[in-house]
């Protein structure tokens, strides 16, 4: 016999049940080598009622997730992250390399990864999206960007949840080298922000 509580819990977006604090907060892992930018993104996330874990490198991000090769045990499941936001240009491991490592991981590949960059370079944007990035944000990141992302993820409208993109290599279990076309045919769900474009809502 289902209780009222059971019914309510079933109807909550699944993302809330995965939050480690149990309070329904989105847990965001932010990665940036700039101290100033880390402080700003942390503030943006806190104001948006997200739990923020902020690290200064891709290596530390992988350590935090347990993907650094030290702890590969399947039992290591205490880290629950709902979104990863990473700077693109970082010394050592770039945000792009971090993105690839995350998408290669069977445990973490479903976590949306957003790339942040001060440079609006189309080929860069395309390769990040090709590699499975959820979105590409132009720096400096604004509160509106974070709120839009949060709404998008809370509604479960991440790219993973959309049908009809069987072309994407990350969806196939058999890894094959990407024959990426010069022009990406996909439209972006949470469009990359750009100074020349008006602010966008995520696609429903």
């Amino acid at each position, binding site marked *: 016999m289902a209780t009222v509580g059971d019914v309510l819990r079933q109807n909550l977006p699944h993302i809330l049940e995965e939050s480690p604090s149990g309070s329904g907060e989105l847990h965001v892992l932010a990665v940036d*080598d*700039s*101290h*100033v*930018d880390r*402080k*700003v993104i942390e*503030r*943006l996330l806190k*104001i948006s009622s997200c739990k923020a874990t902020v690290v200064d490198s891709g290596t530390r991000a992988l350590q935090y997730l347990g993907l650094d090769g030290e702890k590969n045990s399947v039992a290591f499941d205490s880290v629950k992250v709902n979104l990863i936001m990473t700077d693109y*240009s970082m010394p050592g491991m770039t945000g792009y390399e971090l993105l690839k490592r995350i998408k290669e991981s069977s445990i973490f590949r479903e976590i949306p990864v957003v790339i942040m960059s*001060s440079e609006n370079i189309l080929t860069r944007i395309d390769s990040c999206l090709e590699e499975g990035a959820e979105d590409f944000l132009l*720096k*400096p990141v*604004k*509160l509106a960007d974070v709120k839009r992302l949060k709404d998008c993820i809370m509604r479960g409208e991440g790219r993973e949840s959309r049908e009809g993109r069987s072309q994407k290599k990350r969806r196939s279990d058999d890894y094959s080298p990407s024959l990426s076309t010069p022009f990406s045919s996909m439209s972006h769900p949470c469009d990359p922000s750009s100074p020349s474009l008006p602010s966008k809502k995520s696609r429903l």
Partner: protein
Amino acid sequence: MERGQPRRQVAAMKQSLFDQGYLDEQFIQLEELSDDANPNFVEEIVILYYRDSSRLVSSIEQTLERSPLDFNKLESLLHQFKGSSSSIGAKKVKAECTLLGEYCRAGNAEGCTRSFQQLKKEYSVLRKKLEAYFQLARQAGPAESACRPK
């Protein structure tokens, strides 16, 4: 009643910083992240910026002093410096970074050195202006800085 005077002065000072192109929209974005619990957020960020970027300025200086000039290293340092400057809304500093970047990409060592002198000047001027602004804002009371819309 002179109570409103300091706040008007703060507002006027801020307006002038925008009118003269020292600051851009990003500064306002940062102000909106202040609240009662964190009333000095922007000042904290600016202090952090000057502390962090002073290291970058020194590194850029050293790189410019070496011969032959390592343009790749210069570009990398400049990218970081420009990024932070952009994050606090330092409009003129950011513009000088862009100019320096152009000389760097063109492989023009002398142009880089000249451009960097200008960059340092803007960087210094902004620091003084922001120090004066935050000091006045603190004297005027917390109402001036906490303006995040609900």
